[in-house]
């Protein structure tokens, strides 16, 4: 069924822990990933639709609006990722930044 059973796979394994067969796992197959995306999309829609059935108590007005949690969560993450990206340009250094210094 999977390439791991293939002779080549076994030869590559050779008692080693390293084995390079990319399509052996069900979860890693493109078809599975497509399926997961569809299920995820359904769950996303369901979480917003559920608000029609169960009223979300808004403590400050806006947080009771339909889909507020969804929009707020998404935008918050977008902002944080972008902010981190910009900050990364300033703060990121090569992995050995301190190690090199310690050697000096």
């Amino acid at each position: 069924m999977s390439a791991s059973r293939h002779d080549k796979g076994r030869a590559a394994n050779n008692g080693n822990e390293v084995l390079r067969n990319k399509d052996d796992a069900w979860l890693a197959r493109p078809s599975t990933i497509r399926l997961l995306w569809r299920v995820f999309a359904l769950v996303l829609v369901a979480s917003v639709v559920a608000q029609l059935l169960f009223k979300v108590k808004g403590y400050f007005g806006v947080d009771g609006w339909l889909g507020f949690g969804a929009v707020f969560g998404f935008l918050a993450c977008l902002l944080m990722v972008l902010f981190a990206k910009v900050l990364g340009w300033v703060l990121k250094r090569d992995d050995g930044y301190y190690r090199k210094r310690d050697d000096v």
Partner: protein
Amino acid sequence: MFDFLPPALILLAGALLIGPTRGVLRTAVVLVFPLLTLVAIWQVPDGVVLSLNFLQYPIEPIEGSAVRRLFATIFALMAFGGGLYAYRQARWYELAAAHAYAAGAIGVSFAGDLISLFLFWELMALFSTVVVWCGGTPGARAAGIRYAIMHLLGGVILKVGIEGVMVHTGSIEVQPMLANNFDTWMILIGILINAAAPPVSAWLSDSYPESSPTGSVFLSAFTTKTAVLALILLFPGEPVLIGIGLFMVMYGIIYALLENNIRRILAFSIVNQVGFMVCAIGIGTQLAINGAAAHAFAHIIYKALLFMSAGAVVYRTGFNKCSEVGGLFRTMPLTAVCGIIGALAISGFPLTSGFTTKTMISQAAANESLVVVYFLLAAASAGVFLHAGIKFPWFVFFQRDSGLRPKDAPWNMAVAMVFFSVLCILFGVAPELLYAYLPYPVDYQAYTPGKVVFYLQLLLFSGLAFFLLLPLMRRTETISLDTDWLWRVALLRAVHWLAAVLARLGAAVKVLGDRIGRRLGTRGRALFGSDTREGEQVHGIFARAWPIGTTALWIAVLLTAYVIFYYLG
């Protein structure tokens, strides 16, 4: 003297016995002493149990209360779970140090006075440093030294505050106070250093990932959470903590997003989670304090679980970075599942312990009409899912296939992970088990349909954001500069610069000195003459050899002058 054994001493005795024992007996010591400690913890009644006199100060090493027992319980549980996880892999001295470290944390939990609190505080600093050193690499050694310096500094600041309070109020009792004078500020700063608050949050992410795969499990639990307990006991309702907590929450997320080292991501998320607790303590209402205590309890479990999962990966693969691993779910399914449960719990997903405790804090903010705090905490909840909830399991167990096929975690590590996973779900499904032991009576409903829908939307759409923004979060072989750059690089540069300036100054002084010396030498030689060397004819005026006759003449002149002046006078 004692009606029962002090819990901290039991665990300390266990720590001392780990060294001399061997084999099964050592295993028994590692696992049984935390359980004995747990039993002793639940024997401690409310109020001061033990009181002694030391230098005319009333020392109360054991004072019981609900919140103290709660923290001591989770510390003992953590010593047990960590011991189970580590006992076959860790060196004996790491286990002993970890138990002594836990004993310090339990000692702080029950300390009724500031002196005992300080002593156990330092015990923790000491043995946690040993745990960091047990990483065994040059990096761990250096990080351990930086860690020790930071904590000893924090200890000194705390001590200054305690001395001030002792002198100015005459009381050393552990009781609520506000940061309104120098002494109390010093105490607050001393505690906040241990809580990894800004501007020194970097000590945590610097040291924890350098420890051994087992050591980081212990380290994740005690230091920051004893600081949370100390804040609950000493500074409930201190408004400055709200701002500090919110900063920590955001700092943890942003830095974790930038990070590549697996355990450093988790270290940043400790700062993030402790930020929630610190903020809650700042709000200070009964619900908020309950939330802080409950969240600390739940946090220790799921954070230890996450570090266990990461530790198992590091132990099996020898790799520390997201960019080196990936696709490990194939051969490490149990570690992956436990890691995912921990990740869901830290994100506060419904049915996990994070949901039933973190939402208490948000509710407390809403009840006090703290709009900004409420929305920032909500945004942070989304951010936690982003940086720890998905990022950690995704990059370690999924993403691309790294080709690594390591074995799953050793059985003892697996049992410990399953145990903590069960606890994460147990306190998520049946929160009343935890609510019953909180400091104040709980009138809080975690599971209302509206709340569940709101948080599901928040978290699921954060998940969507993660996968859509993945191209922006490509792993790079980098670290991110933090405030510790100031003392690791800037201070070092300043010292080098100062040394160079002093060296130059020294050289200039030397040149000047030489010149002056030469001048004086010439003048001196003119007056006193130089060393008489063979064949040298030139002598200084005062060093010249005068004939005896000349001397006699001068004496005669002087005596004559004397006689003349005598008669004139």
